[in-house]
């Protein structure tokens, strides 16, 4: 809602602004230090830095492992996002349009992978893959990573799509049918444009969730190295830590663009709720009364 000026008393406004500033400082000092350390010429992590140098940027650029890990992460992210987009939107349509027995249960099941601690999800998937390995010859690979990621990315897309569907008047669909469109045409010309931005936002969030995932990935990746796993392995090697700092800094700067896009796309639905914020809304939904058609 818009307001021209706040109605809180001046002292409160100043106080809130001050504390907010401090909290922002708390949030950003470590990030700024990461970027600063990327220019650290030494491999020791002591402060203060002996100077500034771009030698580690060069080293990172030449590092084949980083490139491989990055590509693996991109592939996993795209795979997981695609699956999540399809399954998430299907689920959103199902739950939005139909009242059926177990409706609440379904939205609850969708939330579980994010609500339960990642180590439980990781362990569970790991056991299944090992069992699958014994019975079906299943092995740890990029596909198992994608399966693991997609499982908790679904709810992110689901939440964004269903929030948008709730804001879309159903009369649009009726009008489309009245004008002679069949189901497929209605979907293509009426519904899809309406949820397009929700799909993009959900997809971006799902991708972000998958790209930085390590907790579950440790259990589902086998010998595949995603970027977070590469970071995990290399933080323990003193000579590789500066490279890790460079990688993290570059990613941080590079993610400014998708963050901005995702934020703008979800502006009207109350602003960006992160991947896990999707769980909040999903839980609210699970407890809600069925919306009136």
């Amino acid at each position: 809602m818009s307001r021209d000026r706040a109605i809180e008393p001046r002292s409160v406004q100043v106080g809130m602004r001050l504390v907010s500033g401090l909290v922002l400082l708390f949030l950003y000092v470590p990030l700024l230090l990461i970027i600063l350390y990327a220019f650290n010429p030494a491999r020791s992590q002591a402060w203060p830095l002996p100077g500034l140098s771009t030698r580690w940027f060069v080293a990172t650029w030449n590092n084949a492992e980083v490139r491989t890990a990055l590509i693996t992460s991109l592939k996993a992210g795209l795979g997981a996002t695609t699956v999540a987009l399809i399954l998430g939107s299907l689920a959103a349509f199902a739950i939005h349009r139909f009242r059926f027995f177990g409706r609440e249960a379904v939205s609850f099941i969708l939330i579980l992978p994010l609500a339960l601690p990642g180590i439980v999800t990781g362990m569970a998937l790991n056991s299944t893959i090992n069992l699958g390995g014994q019975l079906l010859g299943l092995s740890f690979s990029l596909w198992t990573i994608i399966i693991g990621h997609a499982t908790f990315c679904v709810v992110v897309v689901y939440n964004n799509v269903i929030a948008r569907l709730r804001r879309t008047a159903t009369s649009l669909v009726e009008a489309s049918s009245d004008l002679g469109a069949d189901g497929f045409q209605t979907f293509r010309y009426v519904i899809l444009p309406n949820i397009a931005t929700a799909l993009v936002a959900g997809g971006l969030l799902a991708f972000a969730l998958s790209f930085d995932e390590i907790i579950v990935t440790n259990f589902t990746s086998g010998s595949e190295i995603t970027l977070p796993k590469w970071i995990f392995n290399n933080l323990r090697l003193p000579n590789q830590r500066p490279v890790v700092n460079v990688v993290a800094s570059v990613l941080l700067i590079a993610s400014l663009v998708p963050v901005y896009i995702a934020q703008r796309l979800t502006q009207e639905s109350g602003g960006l709720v992160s991947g896990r914020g999707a769980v909040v809304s999903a839980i609210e939904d699970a407890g809600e009364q069925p919306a009136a058609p």
Partner: protein
Amino acid sequence: MKRYRANLIAAAGAVLVLGACGGTSSAPASNLPQSIGTGEGALNLVAWTGYVESGKSDPKVDWVTPFQTATGCTINVKFADTSDEMVTLMRQGGGTQWDGVSASGDATNRLIAHGDVAEVNVNLVPDFKDVIPSLQSPKHNTINGKHYGIPYMYGPNVLMYNTQVVNPAPTTWKDTWETSSPYKGKVAAYGNAIFIADAALYLKAHNPSLGISDVYELTTKQLDAAIALLKQQAPLIKKYWTATTDETDPFSSGDMVIGTAWPYQVSFLKSENKPVAAVVPSEGATGWADTWMISSHAQHPNCMYQWMKWTETPAVQDQVAEFYGATPSNAKACDLLRQHIGASADNDYHCGDNAFLKNIALWKTPLQDCGDSRGATCTDYTVWSQRWQEVRGTK
């Protein structure tokens, strides 16, 4: 599940499983490879940090790139921090994920018993004949005359200390165990159940009434005493390290000043010009003798044999020793070492000194069978792991 292409390495797994948990050999070794075939182009290794250097730590320290150039086997290494982790890794994917491992004595017997590693033909490693006598057929990698690996490096778990804070140089482990320690809250300890043996080692010297002889074969009473000592030590500990950086970082920053370490950490900190030194105190030390072992389901067996051959050569053994701080198993490497670092080869490394090796309580898997007159009354590794959790949980 991929089939391993080379039929040179036998399905010795079956033989090994038959010979498990008893050590009685049944069928004679069939299909031991008689020659090393063409390399498969890749090699997946599990190793201790610092054992497989490809120039990443220091551009001048590299015994991987020459190997890759010579054999065409590109190495993919995973650094593990504990023997437990190594055993688990070698069993991943039914044993197909990793071709070889630099196993310490507390992993080797478990791997052999479970059939995870294959017997090796030591004739394919020409430098094997120069390995010091006590490491040619040690109990931890040779069962009934069958060799299950090629010895690599060995060394003690030294007492590392900050020379500026700990004065004079310590001669005993006392300040890492006793509550009177002036370094409370700044002590290092190894974060794995095998560390119980270090407690036993201390008790062996300071509490002889317990009658501890073999620090890896403890009766329940002896184990209780060791656990009590460890719980007493817990408040002294800054952090239980497993990854080497979990010890080198706090030592660098001054958060840790004394504690058990591998020679690698000492070498590393010295290369960073930090004021550290190491000593083997009067009570002695635990230690390890590492063996390169090949998986029974190795996907790249020829490359692994090439690696075992390569790492046994005096030149490579000398390089590793100088970088890591461990002692070479190849006696010929000692000459090279003496050439490069002089008297230190004998004073610090005790290169080729059998007596020194005998004095190290090398890591081995605790078994129920005490191996002496006490019979089968000792506590095995599962019990150790469980009791260890108690120690870790108290902090």
